[in-house]
């Protein structure tokens, strides 16, 4: 049997490793699931996991390593847009397909690379969706916008801000705070003085949690809205008593909303000893897309192991079903044509779905 591999590239060490491991383990789960099917087709399927440390240079090097391994037919990854942009560009000439579970920055697909696809929503879908929610559902007119100075947080906040401005909100301040910062004394002082009606935070749960806690501790109950970066159970744990009045947009369905997700969640818990979270679900789906793409290419290649170029084409042109997040089909740039976006609300430490938005690209 021929060895066929897919790779994951995500941060497995460093402070983002929690999410990176989710992606890796989600993909591993998909590989475990589809091993048999591949074996039937005479292919021994396995996964190689590369650590990008959330660093573009390391990530590019990892992509090159994956590229050098001829058995690797595609990559699930990465977590950070900053990493995937150079890594996918480096791999474009060798047609190594990326299916991204998490990279939301517009540039990821706007460059028109043949090998770059994603199943998550774009910042310019998420940002406006969040903005709409702020203005239509929360009815806030004065908004404070914060971002974590990462490609993700900044890009997302910009999109949200643009939309809110267009809809006539007043942005009392839009600024950044380093992603590693956990002390929000200054920011909170500012919020106290500016008295916004809502706070849009382009950042990750690891930072938002403590922020919410510190904010609520000072008795400020202003709603906080963000994107898929909030999507982790740990958000509520980190925020503790402050886990209230927080909303975020995500493509990953709440585990209990989709039956398929429940099975995956159970398997995940069994295999890796921890709960599946949003990015685990996305990693799982991305891997499935990639693996189904490989199988499609295999068939087109007269039941022989396909080339990378064939996989590239198959992924871009295929329609993929049986996923937790619904059907996936890519447009010409590798963006998902239709997706359902959820707005999740956190109230008193509990998550619930506050609404859904259908994202459709033409």
């Amino acid at each position, binding site marked *: 049997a021929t*060895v066929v591999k897919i790779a994951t590239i995500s941060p*497995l*060490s*460093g402070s983002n*490793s929690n999410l990176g*491991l989710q992606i890796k*383990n989600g993909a*591993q789960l998909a*590989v*475990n699931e589809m091993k048999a099917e591949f074996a039937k087709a005479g292919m021994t399927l*396995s*996964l*190689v*996991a*590369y*650590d990008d440390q*959330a*660093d*573009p*240079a*390391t990530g*590019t*090097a*990892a992509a*090159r*390593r994956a*590229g*050098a*391994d*001829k*058995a690797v037919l595609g990559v699930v990854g990465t977590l950070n847009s*900053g990493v995937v*942009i*150079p890594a996918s*560009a*480096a791999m*474009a*000439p*060798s047609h190594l397909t990326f299916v991204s579970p998490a990279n939301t*920055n517009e*540039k990821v697909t706007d*460059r028109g690379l043949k090998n770059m696809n994603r199943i998550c929503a774009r910042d310019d879908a998420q940002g406006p969706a969040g903005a709409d929610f702020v203005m239509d559902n929360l009815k806030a007119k004065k908004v404070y916008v914060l971002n974590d*100075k*990462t*490609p993700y*947080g*900044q*890009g997302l906040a910009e999109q949200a801000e643009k939309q809110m401005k267009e809809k006539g909100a007043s942005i009392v301040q839009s600024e*950044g705070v380093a992603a590693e910062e956990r002390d929000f004394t200054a920011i909170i002082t500012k919020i106290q003085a500016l008295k916004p009606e809502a706070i849009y935070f382009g950042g990750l749960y690891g930072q938002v949690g403590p922020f919410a806690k510190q904010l609520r501790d000072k008795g400020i109950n202003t709603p906080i809205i963000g994107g898929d970066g909030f999507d982790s159970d740990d958000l509520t744990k980190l925020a503790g008593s402050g886990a209230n009045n927080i909303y975020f947009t995500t493509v990953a369905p709440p585990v209990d909303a989709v039956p398929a997700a429940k099975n995956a969640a159970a398997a995940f818990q069994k*295999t*890796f*000893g*921890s709960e599946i979270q949003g990015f685990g679900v996305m990693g799982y789906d991305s891997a499935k897309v990639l693996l189904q793409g490989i199988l499609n290419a295999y068939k087109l290649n007269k039941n022989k192991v396909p080339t990378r170029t064939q996989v590239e084409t198959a992924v871009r042109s295929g329609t993929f079903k049986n996923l937790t997040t619904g059907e996936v089909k890519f447009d010409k740039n590798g963006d998902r044509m239709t997706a359902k976006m959820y707005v999740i609300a956190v109230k008193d430490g509990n998550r619930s779905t506050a609404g859904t938005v259908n994202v459709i690209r033409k």
Partner: protein
Amino acid sequence: MTTAPVRPNPLKTRPVGGDRTWLLLAYTAISGLLLVFMRDLVADGPMKMLQPVLFGGFLLSLLFAYQWKAAPWAKMLVFAAAIVFVLPFMGRSNTSYFDLMIQMMIFSALALGLNIVVGLAGLLDLGYIAFFAVGAYLWGIFGSPQFAEVTGNPAFAGGINPAYFWLFIPLAVAAAAGVGVLIGLPVLKLKGDYLAIVTLGLGEVIRIFANNLSVTNGPQGIDAIESAPVPWLNSLAHTLGFAEDQYRLFFLYILVLGVIAVTIVVNQRLDRSKIGRAWIAIREDEVAAQAMGVPLLKTKLLAFATGASFAGAMGVIFAAKQAFIDPKSFDYFQSIGVMSMVILGGMGNIPGVILGAIVVTMLNLMVLPTLSEVLQSSFPNINQNLDPSKYQRLIFGLVLVFMMLYRPEGLLPSERRKHEMHSDDEHPAVDSITTENLNHGGELGGHLRDGSGVETLSPGLATRSDNERTGSEK
């Protein structure tokens, strides 16, 4: 008066052992052949761990060629064979080797630059990577679509004509040196660790600016950075069977080799000159150096600017290689990384510093990733908290600690520094008496000597709160 200056002998490296010409050739040939022919056999599974072994084993032949006593022609042959045949061949068959080799060389050049500042002049610079950033952003901004953003002129959608790359190397050298002088002027009067922490701060300042300004495109970074157009080299690469996406690396490989050669020559020539002596002098005793006619600030600035300029040039090349740069590539941990290369390899010694850069880069980009890939694939379904890839940094840390404990003077110490170390293994006196503590009252007290002119900064636990310098009046 035409006698060529003879190098005083304590600085010569002593070749090891008797004549080993044939051993060297044999080793090189065997390790080279093993590397080339085994590479496909060890591509998978646990055997993958042999990849770094083979590659490292081959690279060792370069070290042996340098260290062993052997006929000069044989040494040249080994170097030439490696640089012209084996390494490019490996790069062709596996792009990640190419990437790795270039990265090694970039770090070598950075380490050589820092070596001037830290190893020769003794100035502890923890913000060195800032100069690298200056070079990288300089070319990054001009040589990419970012230039169209900055100028608002869509004609520059692909950046300026990439042929200007050649101009930007000297420009980056000048810019980095200039920034070095600008930064150096106010801070070089600081001593020892005050300098270290201020340079660290300045490094962070530059990174934070890069992360916040719009010319640098903030955290999003700059992508699609061009490299110089070299059609003839591309067609050469084509003839040699390189894949299209390897052309750029092929060109950069050659370019970096050239730059390293220049760096080494400059390093060596400065070291062995009046300026080099002045650097050592201020490193050892600023007061005496100044009293012997060495202008402190100027001499330190020269070291700072020279070191910076290497980093500047390398920055341009790095930007061209990565095609993407962002502020993360220039954080202070990178400075620390380069520093560890210098110290691990052997401060003040050019081959040592290069060795340090190669070892650390190889460890980080090849050995440890391979190890964790192997472990990952052996235990695909392991508990999340035990995931093997997470031990990469842990292992790196352990390697740092053990290497330093095992060879505190560095892997290939300079003879001069070795002497300073005075490890005194044979009979560790209660506290081994080093030159420093003999003359200055202890390594720590020796810190006192960091004072220029006569000012020293209270080194130890600071003394009294009130200013009691002189006694009662007479």
